[in-house]
């Protein structure tokens, strides 16, 4: 709860902590409230995100081989690995851009062979992109507001006329955007065009746009790539605050192990498409397979920590 001290308003989700536990399996609340209570009693709670036996090949190249991954509710989960290890492929499968040859993806209790990209937002999944997917010509505020684009419910005519429903939704959306902008300390750049901001700040804007939907699951694709050390610290603090305040489950793909080790609850390591280690940062750091495959025996790649 200390996260509130960031100066942002108290968030609604936080007012009702039981919500997080009750809704642990994500999605489908209306469909099976009763049935699930029994179900949950019998079986262990489904992870917020689960990957089961995922394999993916491009032509003759196996990008992913039999990868399993489970992400617990409210966890910050990192997937690391050298270039070409299959990290991005994994994320693209989760967001439905690739269809795995084998295996399935679980969001709470729903499993997918091929994730329907268009329904992701509805499932409570948001993501950011390695190379940013911001509207460079729009203001920070408009960018964040666009995070709620899929939620437009009032029809076009209602917007023009300004019907009560349209106005209420609009007001709610704007309030949500303002809140997240305050939360991520972007108030000062609120009206600036996103494209004119430093790269690290743009990453923050993209994070804000993802968070404005209050996602259950947030996928971050190399959130720390190409930002300065100071920005890295700030961003990782934001990521942690997001989890602490919104209860968002976070999966991050990262190259830079230094930040990841400090931030994540659990880390999975990929190498040549296989998962070679999985555990707490401390476990992974001392895992011989990881040291061999990723960290390098002769410390050539030590710079990875510094960058």
């Amino acid at each position, binding site marked *: 709860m200390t996260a509130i001290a960031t100066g942002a308003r108290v968030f609604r989700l936080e007012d009702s902590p039981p919500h997080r536990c009750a809704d642990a399996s994500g999605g489908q609340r209306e469909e099976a409230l009763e049935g699930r209570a029994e179900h949950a009693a019998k079986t262990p709670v489904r992870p917020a995100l689960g990957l089961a036996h995922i394999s993916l090949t491009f032509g003759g190249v196996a990008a992913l081989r039999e990868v399993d991954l489970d992400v617990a509710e409210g966890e910050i989960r990192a997937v690391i690995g050298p270039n070409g290890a299959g990290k991005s492929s994994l994320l693209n499968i989760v967001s439905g851009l690739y269809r795995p040859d084998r295996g399935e993806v679980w969001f709470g209790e729903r499993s997918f062979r091929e994730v329907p990209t268009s329904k992701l937002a509805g499932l409570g999944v948001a993501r950011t992109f390695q190379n940013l997917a911001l509207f460079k010509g*729009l203001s920070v505020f408009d960018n964040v507001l*666009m995070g709620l684009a899929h939620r437009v419910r009032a029809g076009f005519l209602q917007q023009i006329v300004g019907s009560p429903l349209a106005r209420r939704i609009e007001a709610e959306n704007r309030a949500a955007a303002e809140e997240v902008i305050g939360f991520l300390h972007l108030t000062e750049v609120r009206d600036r065009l996103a494209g004119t901001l430093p790269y690290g700040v743009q990453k923050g804007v993209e994070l804000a746009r993802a968070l404005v939907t209050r996602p259950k699951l947030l996928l971050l694709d190399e959130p720390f790539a190409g930002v300065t050390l100071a920005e890295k610290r700030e961003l990782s603090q934001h990521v942690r605050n997001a989890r602490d305040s919104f209860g968002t489950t976070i999966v991050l793909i990262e190259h830079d192990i230094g930040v990841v080790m400090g931030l994540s609850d659990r880390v999975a390591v990929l190498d040549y498409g296989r998962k070679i280690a999985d555990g707490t940062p401390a476990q992974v750091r001392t895992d011989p397979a990881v040291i061999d495959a990723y960290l390098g025996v002769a410390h050539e790649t030590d710079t990875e920590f510094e960058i």
Partner: protein
Amino acid sequence: MFDYQFLLEVLIGGLLSGVMYSLVAIGFVLIYKTSGVLNFAQGAMLLFAALTFVSLVERGAPFLAALAATLVIMVVLGIATERLVLRPLVNQPPVTLFMATLGLSYVIEGAAQLLWGTQVHGLDIGISDAPFEVAGVLISRFDLFAAAVAGSLVALFALFFRYTRTGLSFRAVADDQFAALAVGLRLPRVWAAVWIVAGIVALVGGLLWGARLGVQFSLSLVVLKALPVLVLGGFDSITGAIVGGLLVGAIEKLAEVYVGPLFGGGIEAWAAYVAALALLLIRPSGLFGQKLVERV
């Protein structure tokens, strides 16, 4: 001695007629900005709107009813275009899309011909073309009216883009389609909306151009007039379309009056193209167009 009064008159006449070009060009820009399609069918849509309106009026429909009916038809046309032409061709190269709109323009013209016949119609929207005098300069009443209509339309658009959610979606899609997809914006819906808006622009343009030239099939050729406007103003800027239109109007008239005699007259029809060509050599993306910077 140089007649400044006359220069002013020519200039104002040119600028006012340029507004009409802007009106056509704006339809192009809207679609180009949001979907990257150079919509050659804009002229056919303009013709179709004008022809539908004038035919309804000739069949005894009151002015406003005919206007409303034509509006509805243009909306349906816009939605149908997105469904039947653009959506199946999504992700195709720009040339394919351009060819599709070229085909579309002939389909629309054909449909117009089938529905309303081929004769030329006069269109009277109740504004006389009689000039009036302001400080010794003659100004066409009709041109002034057209400029006012176009001006209010542009102002409306500006408000719409600034203050409505759909407007924001337009700006977002125009800014970055990939990002728009990433936030879950329904691109087909935005495209349908933008074709509808382009249809409305075509209706307004069609009525003004139809009133000026008579509603006939050569009306669809105003697209060719819009091209130098777009080259001058940039394909992706509404401001550019407005300024470009004004420039083309002014250049045409000034060239005709002051340069024309050197060539024995008749250069009004192509002076704008020469200016556009010259500008292309200096600023390939137009005066207001976005410079394409490709990172390698």
